[in-house]
């Protein structure tokens, strides 16, 4: 039995269905992420788990027990809010002690447990400060310590790093991973940031328009997206859509406008005549000078139309001679050299049949 079972949960606001028959099982000890664009229903789902909102249909079970009818203060679940929501009139210690006092923990035990929680988030010596005397990252740690101090079975985190700058966010990501590992508490994490989700999670549920599009491990989600939405939302992706002409030996041949025939490995047999898409990650595409000898399964001549220098890598947008467009990514591994190609250069782009992943539609 999973720790948290979300079964066919529906939540409507008027005509708008914010959460549409969502079912997810989350195992104890998991770092689980709800990922999706804003308005996809991920925060609504989190509020349903916390108890701030009630589902219009379906059930939410924690340890096999239906949570319906239990207000938030009676659920053993804790939330880390996006705005931190620290009590401004209490010190850091006061904030962290709050759930212990509400939980009728004997006064004698409180200082020790507060200290342990602050140690967990590396905030020793900050107990006497007030929230307004802390930096964003420190406030975030207090919010986490306050949520963890009662050792809840489940911690809900609502975009907890969204307000931090990029550098600090990366630091906190690493800390969250080790913290979750240390305390062994199940995390349900909400974010719209796909890199954050990939970096942190054991499993990710990608949500779109209130529905779960795919639940998978980060590497499977990235490598084998099940829908156009997932392929496009997770990382960058070239989506080449066309009709299947033939399938043989697990390789489908698609007729793609702007390219011509393109080969793609297909896990399940593709029906001839149906419309499918090849999801192709930019880093899987090789970009070379035209005179190169060895050929790929798929190879097209073209011109560099645009490029984006990112420091470690450069993204090249190539227009093929047939009128198609692909994005290719090249690591800038040669020292002192910013880029290999310039806009207007003639190039060949190529990839193996196994580089792409076939999707319906």
């Amino acid at each position, binding site marked *: 039995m999973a720790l948290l079972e979300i079964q066919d949960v529906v939540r409507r606001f008027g005509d708008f269905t914010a959460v549409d028959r969502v079912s997810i099982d989350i195992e104890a000890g998991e770092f689980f992420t709800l990922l999706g664009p804003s308005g996809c229903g991920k925060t609504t789902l989190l509020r349903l788990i*916390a108890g*701030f909102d009630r589902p219009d249909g379906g059930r939410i079970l924690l340890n096999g027990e239906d949570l319906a009818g239990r*207000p*938030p*203060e009676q659920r053993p*679940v*804790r*939330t880390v*809010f996006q*705005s931190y*929501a*620290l*009590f*401004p*009139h*209490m*010190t850091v210690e006061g904030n962290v002690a*709050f*759930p212990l006092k*509400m*939980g009728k923990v004997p006064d004698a035990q409180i200082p020790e447990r507060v200290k342990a929680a602050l140690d967990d988030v590396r905030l020793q010596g900050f107990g006497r400060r*007030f929230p*307004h005397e802390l930096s964003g990252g420190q406030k975030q740690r207090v919010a986490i310590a*306050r*949520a963890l101090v*009662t050792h809840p079975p489940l911690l809900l985190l609502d975009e907890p790093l969204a307000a931090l700058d990029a550098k600090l966010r990366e630091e906190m990501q690493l800390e969250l991973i080790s913290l979750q590992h240390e305390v062994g508490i199940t995390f349900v994490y909400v974010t719209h940031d796909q890199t954050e989700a990939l970096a942190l999670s054991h499993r990710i549920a990608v949500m779109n328009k209130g529905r779960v599009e795919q639940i998978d491990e980060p590497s499977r989600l990235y490598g084998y997206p099940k829908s156009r939405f997932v392929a496009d939302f997770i990382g960058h992706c070239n989506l080449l859509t066309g009709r299947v002409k033939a399938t043989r030996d697990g390789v489908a041949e698609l007729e793609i406008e702007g390219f011509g025939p393109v080969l793609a490995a297909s896990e399940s047999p593709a029906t001839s005549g149906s419309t499918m898409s090849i999801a192709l990650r930019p880093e899987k595409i090789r970009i070379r000078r035209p005179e190169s000898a060895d050929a790929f399964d798929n190879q097209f001549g073209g011109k560099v139309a645009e490029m984006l220098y990112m420091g470690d890598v450069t993204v090249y947008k190539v227009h093929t001679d047939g009128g198609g467009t692909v994005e290719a990514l090249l690591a800038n591994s040669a020292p002192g050299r910013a880029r290999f190609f310039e806009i207007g250069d003639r190039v060949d782009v190529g990839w193996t049949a196994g580089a792409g992943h076939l999707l319906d539609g």
Partner: protein
Amino acid sequence: MAALAETTKSRWLVSGPPLLYLIAFFALPALIMVLASFRSPGEFGGLAPLVDTSGQVDLNVESYTRFLTEPVYAQVFLKSVVVALLTTLCCLLLGYPLAMVIARSPKRRRDLLLLLVILPFWSNFLIRVYAWMIILGPQAMLSRAVNSVLAVAGIEPVSLLFSPFAVLVCLVYVHLPFMVLPLYANLEKHDQALLDAAQDLGANGWQRFWKVTFPLSLPGVYAGAALVFIPALGIFAIPDILGGPDDSLIGNLIKQQFLETRDWPFGSVLSIVLTVAALLLAGLVAWIGRARTEKEPARA
């Protein structure tokens, strides 16, 4: 340099008129009152000449001695403080839930509710006080209802009007908006996320109020209390109109000294005592408020 002189000039132009106004109509009269408190009353009211016929300057502390030695004045003064405190407390108990309901109602409805709170200001103060004479009068429904209940219990009928009860009810009625408005201004700014967090951390409704909402609203409570307590302490019209002969407050005594007894020096002493007491209490509240803010900074 020219620019600097220009700024100084414009600063004086802006702050000059209100400053002059305050000096002429507030600071000087206050000073005159302090001076008057050390002089003797005139034979037919007003003040006796500063320099008497024998050429001696007549300054004394007799009026102060009188205030300190005749216990009746201190008693009235103490009673006024108690009545003002009671008024403040009643306003707080009635005003807090009201301010909270307004602050938590949908945005569109808030303006209407606030308008209703200040609506009484649109009619004259004395008219509103006289209205209570009718509401509390012996023939009014309220008095009859109360007395018929008392009759069942075998108690003599009472008069609601011309009683301490009438004075307190009207004091609370008149001052309630002064409590509601600062409280609303504070409560309206509270972050719902804090209440969500408190609930998520295990606090029930009662605990959420006492541990989060109320401590954060203290600046509003202090402001409202000061705005109610200080005017309530000096009021004279309400006890005059609705109170009985024993319900006089310090404000009535001051008015009496100037208009009826015509003992200006003693009236001045009573005024000064009132002002100093109000200032001390306001200072105390401000000090408590600041001490709290330093210790536990609450968002105003």
